[in-house]
């Protein structure tokens, strides 16, 4: 009898102890994902999984976006391959310069999409949109997705095209898609409304 009572009393206490071991998850803590998500996405964040020596990762660090991509919010990152940086000018050429930081942020956020967007999702949207689909970026501007030979091509407002050459690398806070070119935000936002 007393054993049963002890067991009844101990069970909720154990639950309390288990709950107390959890971190509160605030201010840049590791993302909280359901257990089944961990199997799919692994335990690495996008920031942790990026090659630290890659040009994109270095630029993201210079812009302070490395901590953003290490947080819990879900993003899709279009990572240009290092070869794409060969011909860059301006902020991407010298990302460490403080003067370039705002422009750098502007360029990099064009390569970050809200939420998790897989290649299949883009493909479906293109099909549903009769050949093209608009894609929201964290820059505020949009990209246009199309298909070319089975691959998804993203086009910026200036007409620059980037093809997803490898991707769907699932991370704990989103997904990474590798592209073959750098997209460029338009110098001025297109006139949204005319009076």
């Amino acid at each position, binding site marked *: 009898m007393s054993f049963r009572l002890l067991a009844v009393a101990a069970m909720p206490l154990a639950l*309390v102890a288990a709950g107390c071991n959890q971190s509160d998850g605030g201010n840049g803590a590791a993302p909280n994902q359901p257990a089944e998500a961990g199997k799919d996405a692994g335990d690495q964040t996008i920031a942790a999984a990026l090659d630290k020596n890659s040009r994109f990762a270095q630029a993201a660090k210079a812009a302070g976006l490395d901590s953003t991509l290490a947080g*819990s919010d879900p993003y899709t990152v279009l990572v240009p391959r290092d070869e794409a940086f060969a011909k860059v000018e301006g902020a991407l050429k010298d990302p460490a310069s403080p003067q370039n930081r705002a422009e750098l942020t502007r360029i990099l956020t064009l390569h970050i999409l809200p939420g*998790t967007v897989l290649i299949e999702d883009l493909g479906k949207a293109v099909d549903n949109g009769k050949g093209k689909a608009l894609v929201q970026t964290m820059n505020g501007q949009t990209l246009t997705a199309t298909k070319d030979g089975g691959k998804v091509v993203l086009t910026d407002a200036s007409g620059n095209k980037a093809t997803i050459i490898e991707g769907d690398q699932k991370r704990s806070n989103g997904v990474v898609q590798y592209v073959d070119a750098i997209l460029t935000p338009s110098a001025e936002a297109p006139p949204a*409304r005319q009076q």
Partner: protein
Amino acid sequence: MRKLILAAGVAALAITAPASAKPDKGGGHGGHAQAQGGGGGGQKAERGGGQKAERRGGGGGQQAQRVERRGGGERRAAQKERRGGGPAQRMERRGGGERQAQRIERHGQERQAQRVDRRGAGERRFANFQSGNGRKGQQRVEKHSRGDRDFARVENRGRGGERHEIRNHEQRFASHDQFRGRNDARVRNFDDARQFAVRDSDEFRRVAEWRDWNDGDWDRRFANRGLPASFVGCPPGLAKKSPACVPPGLARNAFVGAALPNYYASNSFPVGLRDIYYDTDDYYYRWGDGYAYRVDRGDQLISALLPLVGAGLGVGMPFPYQGSSYYVPSSYQSFYPDYGYDDDYYRYANGYVYEIDGNSGYIEDVIPLLDRGYGVGQMLPAGYSYYNVPYQYRDAYYDTDDYSYRYAPGAIYQVDRDSQLITGIASLLTGGLSVGQPLPPAYGVYNVPISYRDTYYDTPDNWYRYSNGYIYQVDPTTQLITAIVRSIV
């Protein structure tokens, strides 16, 4: 003894119950979606949702705890306790499942430009910056608490009225600025031809009203630490207290080639920014009055000056693009709606949104957007002195002794509390979605995080899209957002 053991068990269950209640994580299609009038997502969704709910709730997993944590109670007090207290305290403190529902309800009523007004002891409301809804002609008095300090601000957005809050930038890069790397930096930043204007003699007095002059701590934190004049209450171009009110052109003349003022000598950059402004054998950096100063170790003279605030036209200047169209990027239009030319109106140019006085054509406010304005190493205006992080992110980003978290269009920023410099971009935000509005065309792509895809997947009856911490339900036929079905941040 038996009574004692039973009492302990009951007490422990009482503590545990809220943790396993998990009000918003178990729903899926059968949870909030249905509660808010949305349809289900089919059998699979219901099964998946139900299983998830049971599993997470019973296990007391992390998700469950996060939701439980958002339960009732005064947020600020909770944060204080959280900083000081241990996990056990948190478990006891939090509880209740009403918060999520309240948040969803609120979110359905307001738009993206959420600012939390704190009125008295913990009472909050969302101010609505949308057009309509009494946006024009409203006067708002806000009193913001941070810790044991109060920040008072009066903001008058009435027709023909003046804005008492001044938060703008008096610095800008000229197009020919040069900054040739850290070891050979040379900065020529300012256009001395700029003219400042003060619109009437009462402006200084009104600005002074905004500031809480009796707050000694405010003085210590801002004025004495050298924030730009326009941020701490000086009318643009007028010096209340030199050198805190030196206009940019004069700043260059006054500082480059001069000795670093003693009051900036101890203003080292926050640790998080020292990889940007790092000292070398030849130079070191200090900050103050809205600038970064590069000081030559050889002669101890300032050799370069770099503005810490985004470039742009300043308050009190005539807007040079009179007659221009609206041009505000679509993702920001809900923040800065198009009023035409009626009284105050918004225009966009060069990465900034300008609020312009319709009568005089002078700039009343300058709002840099993320893509051109704020960034790591920059400075947020003092107008962001209060905690304003959107509700869904408050458990993720709360102020600490070292850092503040501030929301400005486009992002949540981590800000060094001492210097007010941005040390990180905590989260990027889009313009956001809200219930009742049409789904923006750029959200045609399914983007629900992987963890939630087995619950929220597109069907002929419902689509699901993620934005700014929420998963939204969309009617595919009307393309209208019908519900917020989950908060996942």
